[in-house]
Structures are given as C-alpha cells and as structure tokens.
C-alpha cells in the first residue's frame, strides 16, 4: 500500500467529513432545538449551489457569488420555516417526514423550472484551481484543501457562536427547554426562524463548496442528506460536538472503505471474493456503523447533557 495514496485518501475523507459537518450541524440544531425532522435540508444544499452558480456567472467572481448566495439561501430557509415548518412543530415526526418530503418534490421541480434539467458547473478562479505540493511529496488539489480549511473555520465559528455569544446562549436555552426559555422572555418563534435560517446557510455553504467539483444538479441533496442524518444519529441528536466528530469519522470511514476495503478483505478471503464483496460492503459501512451505534448506544456517541 502506497503511503502517498493513503494520505491523499485521508484528505479526501476529511473533505467529505467537513461537508457532512456543515450539513449535519444545521440538521442537528433543528432536530435538537425544534424536535423537527427536516428531510428538505438537502434541498437547501441544492438551492445554495444553484444560487452560487448563477451568481458566479453574473458577477464573474466565485467569492462574491458565495457572499451573495449565503444571505439568499438564508432567506429561502427563513421563508420555508415561516410558511410550512412553523405549523408542524407540534405535530409528530411522521408529519414532519411527509411534509418535508413534499418540500423536496417542490424544490426539485422549482429548480428544474428555473434552471432547466441540466446541471450547472461553476468555474473556479485561477488561484483555487491548481495543485499544491504538500510535505512528503504529496500533490493535492488546492480547492479541496480550501474546502477543508473553510469548513474547519466555519466549525470553529459555530463553536464560538453557540458557546460564547448571547444568541448562542439563547439557542442553548431553547435546546434544553423551549417552554422555559419562552417564559423567561426569549422570543421562541424568532429564535426558531433564526436557527432554521442558520441551518440553511450552512447547508447552502456546503452546496456552494461542492458545486465547483461536482456541479450543481437537481436532486444533488437527496443522497447526501441521508448520510448527514446518519451523522446526526451517530453523533447524538442536538449535539454539535457530536456532529463534528461523527461527520469526520463517517467521512473518513466512507472514503477509506471505498478505497482500501478490498485490500483488507483480500487478507481474509480469495481475491475474487474480495473484489465482488468490497464495493457492496464499503457502501454499507456507514449504515452498519449507525445500526451498531443505535443497537448499543441508542442516544448516539455524544448526547447533549441537557436533555
């Protein structure tokens, strides 16, 4: 096994983990604070990517486009919360699942109407497009390194926001006991809208960051949102710290499994059997992880202490 390849795949896993964290942190906040199951979180990821692609075309600058697309995605998130989600907080999870499933259909079709069935590519600026020579002779795309850096910076920012600011204090109060927080004078309705918009911004940011690699396409959020849910469950619902650890863990397990599982299996079985079973098993790895976590530690790895 080549050490350079392992290092490159570790970085790829880290990059996937960082993206998953951006999606899962919003999801886990919405889950933990509003007790709301939001399947349509992946749609906000897609909306962010499309906004960014259009704005990059219009302004010619990727960074400016991201800066403009973030508040636009926040507005979409807030509108969804005010129009639909708000009416569902008191309902059971089945209603959440169904209504947000309907939202997915609406978003996917609206994007198709507005942007057409073809995906949209985003051209990277020259400074982000090259390769970097890392210590140890490793060559890795600059942009993927930027994703990792930006994602970790956002994670740090979120940590500061939640633990050190007044808004964060309110969010934590809302998470541990919304009724009591409301009685103490916090505008719970506004807080919920803000949290939902914050989640939308982070999901949208994830979409904007991945779009230059994969391009923005319809339904792009529908696959990754399931993985993000796995992250939330494994990390413990409502725990941002748990989401961070679980996102990196799952990003690494998924990437490393897809790259190296066949080699590992070859130690145990014949080469042919390993080659046929490795793809199936590596695609199932994260779900096996989630099922085992739920079987042995149903509250997740890092359940929030307050609940």
């Amino acid at each position, binding site marked *: 096994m080549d050490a350079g390849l392992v290092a490159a795949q570790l970085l790829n896993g880290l990059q996937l983990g960082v993206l998953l964290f951006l999606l899962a942190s919003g999801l886990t906040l919405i889950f933990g604070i509003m007790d709301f199951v939001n*399947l349509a979180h992946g749609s906000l990821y897609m909306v962010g990517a499309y906004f960014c692609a259009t704005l990059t075309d219009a302004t010619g600058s990727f960074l400016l486009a991201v800066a403009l697309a973030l508040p636009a995605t926040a507005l979409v998130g807030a509108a969804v919360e005010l129009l639909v989600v708000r009416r569902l907080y008191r309902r059971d999870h*089945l209603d959440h699942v169904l209504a947000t499933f*309907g939202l997915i259909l609406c978003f996917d079709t609206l994007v198709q109407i507005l942007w057409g069935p073809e995906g949209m590519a985003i051209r990277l600026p020259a400074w982000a497009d090259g390769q970097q020579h890392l210590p140890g002779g490793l060559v890795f795309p600059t942009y993927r390194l930027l994703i990792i850096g930006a994602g970790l910076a956002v994670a740090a920012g979120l940590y500061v926001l939640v633990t050190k600011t007044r808004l964060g204090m309110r969010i934590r109060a809302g998470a541990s006991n919304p009724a009591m927080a409301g009685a103490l004078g916090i505008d719970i309705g506004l807080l919920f809208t803000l949290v939902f918009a914050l989640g939308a911004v982070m999901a949208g940011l994830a979409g904007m960051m991945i779009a230059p690699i994969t391009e923005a396409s319809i339904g792009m959020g529908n696959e990754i949102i399931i993985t993000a849910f796995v992250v939330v*469950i494994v990390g413990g619902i409502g725990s941002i710290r748990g989401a961070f650890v679980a996102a990196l863990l799952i990003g690494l397990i998924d990437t490393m499994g897809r790259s190296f599982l066949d080699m590992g299996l070859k130690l145990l079985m014949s080469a042919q059997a390993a080659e046929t079973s490795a*793809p199936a098993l590596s695609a199932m790895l994260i779900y096996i992880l989630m099922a085992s976590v739920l079987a042995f530690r149903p509250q997740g790895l890092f359940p929030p202490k307050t609940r």
Partner: protein
Amino acid sequence: MSRAVGWLLLAALAAGPPLALAAGQPFYVDILTRLVCLAAAATSLNLILGHGGMISFGHAAYIGIGAYAVGIPAYYEIYDGWLHILFAVAFSSLFALATGAIALRTRGVYFIMITMAFAQMVFFAVVSIEEYGGDDGLVIDIRSEFPLVDLEDSLTLYYACFAVLLGTLYLVHRLVRSRFGMVIEGARGNERRMASLGFAFYRHRLAAYTLAGALCGLSGAMLGNFTNFISPEMMDWTRSGELIFMVVLGGTGALFGPLMGAAAFLLLEELLSGWTIYWQLPFGLLLILVVLFARGGLAGLLEGRRG
C-alpha cells in the same frame, strides 16, 4: 362511509380490467396492476405504521427484496413461481426479523432513521452487485411459472396481483381485530401501560414487523413480475416515502385507507403528469397540504373527521 367507498373501489378493481380491455384500452390494465401491487404493499405498511405506530421509513426495501427474489432466479433460468414466492416471503421475513429485532429497540425518530439505514444497506448492496445488473437493473425475460395459470397474460397477472391484495387486506383485517392486534395497538397508545398490564409487546411488534415485511415482499414479487424489469431504484428511500404517503393520504389505521391512498396517489400522478412535465410541484404542494389540513387522510374525510 369509508368502508363503503373501499368496497366500491374493490368492486371497481375486480370489474375494471376486462372492461378496459373490451374498450380497447389495455394501458389501463397496466396502471391498475401497478395500483393493486402498490396498494398491497401500502396495506402491509399500514399494519405496522397505522396500527402499530412503527414508522418504518424503509418499507420499499421489501418490495425490492421480493422483486429480486423473482429476478435473480430468473437470471439463472429458474422460473418456478412457487419457488419465487417462497424466496420472496422467506428472504423478506428473514430480513425483517433480523433488522426489526435491532430497530424495535429504538423509539421515535431513531426508529425512522434505523429502518431507513437498513433499507439503504439493501439498496447499496444491490447497486454494487454487478452480476445482477447493479445500477442498471435486471430484465426478467420470463415471468414466474405456475401450474394452470399463465402470468404472461396481462389479465391473469392482474387477477393474481388482485388476489394478493385481497389476501393482504383480509389478513391485516383479521389480525388487527385479534388479541394480537389489540396488543400492538395498545402499545402504540401507551407502552408503559401495556408493559404494566404484563404484555411483552416487543415480541408482538417484532412479529407484526416481520409479517408486514413478508407481505410486502410478496407484493414486490408481483410488482417485479409485472414490470419485467427490476432495478435498485425500486427501493430508493424516496420510494419508501411514497409508500408512507399512500398510507397517510388514505388514512392511517383504516382498513381500506392504504388502498384509497394508493389509488389517489396513482390517479394524481397520471393526471398531473399528463397535464405538465412539472407535475411533481403540485404533487409536492398537495402532500404538504394533506399533512397540514387533512390529517385523517381520505378515510378521515369520508368519516367527517378533520384535523
């Protein structure tokens, strides 16, 4: 009232296909065959979702297992229908028993997510087995062969599927009226009370979950026979969402609810997709409106219940 509509619908389904053929519209027989198969699958889901309160978000996996229980033997040129049915029922009940034993230890949203995770495992396992077509699916060149009946004839196939639907309805009806059904309904209402009354309802739930899986596997085998083409797409998580929608649209816990829901679902799909290529938008909006304003589903509306 909803019972009467249900019986009317059954009568229409019993008489419809020969009339459609006589009118020179074989296309409608195809739609009705699909309807009957999906209605049987939704009825089996209603046993655990509506009566048992177990929100399984992975029920489409059993459709897939049933369909591949026909497709994989057919790939090896084994066409014996009884064997296909044995495989479909055996493998789906085994899968339901094994996954249910773990999933039923969890509650609420964890249950939703773990059932979905198990379904995703099956999905990805099938996607990555290239021998059976992987992503591209598998063509079934000859349908299951039974003595005396010939499923290659579209009308015979239809009545075979219809018989499966009737059998599923009858079984679910008898079951929920029995002591067994009372236990799972009681456990849905109040677990602690059932436990203190001395019922070990975990076993009842597991039995219901397994039976629902087996019944759904059977309808999946019929669906596979009907489409002649099976692919992992049949068990995509959005398919599980659609099954839940059928149950809720019709009315959870009502005997004919899933049948009405499946009929309304397919009718809407046909009408809207004939009207616009963007049919998923009104479809999604309708789904949201049903959740917001018509919680009893169609059965509830017919009984004059609201919200």
